[in-house]
């Protein structure tokens, strides 16, 4: 205990440093729109967008209102579950915030067919070299799904013969 405590005050060049960690278990309401989207991921392995009745934009991820005209959104559009990479990056550093702390992982903005905006998610089963802007991808769902965004395990390139 004493040892653990003493870690909390470090001295650097005669300056005392107080080490503290803010620990709060945040628990966010997803709200009805995101809940419906996540439930469809969880229960049906389906990805839904939501259409603005005025602007006609199909938003992914779905949200309660259109940012442009502020219309309430409730017209759900089932997306085909395939799309194109708009941009991607391979992350080469480690951070506690990264999903399951892999050493390297790829994130991409993916525009699914039928949606007008892109979803940011991971890309798996492919190296960075195999990807480019425009690569066709499809979602891979987790076996045990919990009703969160990681119910999509990642997107993977559609290989010939599998499309």
């Amino acid at each position, binding site marked *: 205990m004493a040892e653990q405590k003493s870690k909390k005050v470090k001295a650097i060049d005669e300056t005392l440093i107080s080490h503290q960690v803010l620990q709060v278990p*945040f628990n966010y309401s997803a709200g009805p729109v995101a809940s419906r989207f996540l439930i469809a991921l969880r229960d049906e392995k389906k990805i839904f967008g939501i259409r603005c009745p005025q602007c006609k934009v199909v938003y992914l991820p779905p949200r309660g209102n259109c940012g442009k005209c502020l219309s309430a959104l409730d017209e759900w559009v089932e997306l085909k579950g395939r799309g194109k990479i708009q941009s991607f990056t391979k992350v080469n550093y480690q951070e506690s915030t990264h999903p399951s702390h892999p050493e390297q992982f790829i994130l991409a903005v993916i525009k699914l067919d039928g949606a007008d905006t892109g979803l940011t998610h991971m890309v798996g089963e492919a190296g960075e070299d195999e990807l480019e802007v425009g690569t066709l991808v499809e979602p891979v769902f987790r076996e045990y799904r919990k009703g969160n965004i990681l119910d999509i395990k990642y997107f993977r390139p559609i290989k010939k013969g599998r499309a």
Partner: protein
Amino acid sequence: MARKAAIIAAGQTYHKSKRRDVNIVELIHEAVKACLEDAQMGPKDIDAVLIGNMEHFEGVYNPDLWAVDATGALMKHALKITTGGTTGASVAHAGYYHVASGLFDCVLCIGWEKQSDGDTTAGLIFQSDPLFERSNMAGAIGTFALAASEYMDRFGISEEQAAKVAVKNRGNAVNNPYAHLRRPVTVQDVLTSPPLAHPIKLLDMCPTSDGACAIIVASEEVARKKSPNKPAWFKALATRHDQPFNSDLPLLINMRTLQSAAKEAYKQAGITNPRKQFDVAEFYEPCTFAELSWYEALGFCELGGGGKLIDSGVTEMTGELPVNPSGGVISTNCIGATAMIRVAEAALQVMGKAGARQVDGVKTALATGFGGSFWTEITILEGN
């Protein structure tokens, strides 16, 4: 003063301790939508969007960015101003400055908090000084308990007198459909409610609420030509900050910032007899004792006379100067929105739109904001 500016519309959410039916941005949007509907305006009519909250309560860094769809700020001038409990008033004042500057005609101001997504007392402990206060302080409850002990000792204020503030405000909240706690209480209820931190009991203290509030501040031209509501003009505003530690401040609860800000704002608005000249006041009273001491700081009575003033009934709905017809903070407290709700409620009173909580014939209304280390934001609004 430069250009005149007025509040022409206000909107707020229904408040409760946990709004699971909306996420953060949907909660904000509820207030924005209500406000735009009140103004009969669309997002195109708005020049700028100003917003604020306290970020550690929800653990979202720069939530203004996430909320951009919900606020209608897309491609607009948008600023985030966060000053603690005073945030809602700081944002409302920023709305005034924006319009008075001549650069903007119609500014949407938003304050919000979704406290149930996080932990309020933990967030407030995180607000205290990391080296000198954090290990021992116990949120706002602890701070006001310290302040109340000093106040009671100095002026002989009783717990019964403080309890009367809760009775009055909770009674008023019955008339406010937006209030979080709408069940009236008695002095006995307050005195026998569970002790939180001596001498503060559960019913002496504000709740923690999820909620949001939005107002539109507009130029004179917009206010006169486009507003469906009677404008509530900014007559005076004043802000005061203080030294960093609560322990620096002599006679904590009497708030030298409030006294100093009142002096400036009263001078600007020509207020010499606040009890007569104000028709209504909305206080940011986090606890019962605070309302009593702020009667004094605001010159409604002499120093130490807050207890007698509540006894006299002057600040009741039927009194000479009703304080907190909305039910005040003791009935609803969504921190980043709270100070703006005070301004919005004062504006509704001036507009004559306060429904069952309306005070007759309001011309001049006062709103206070509280935050940080006993900081103040005062707003005086006026009709016609």
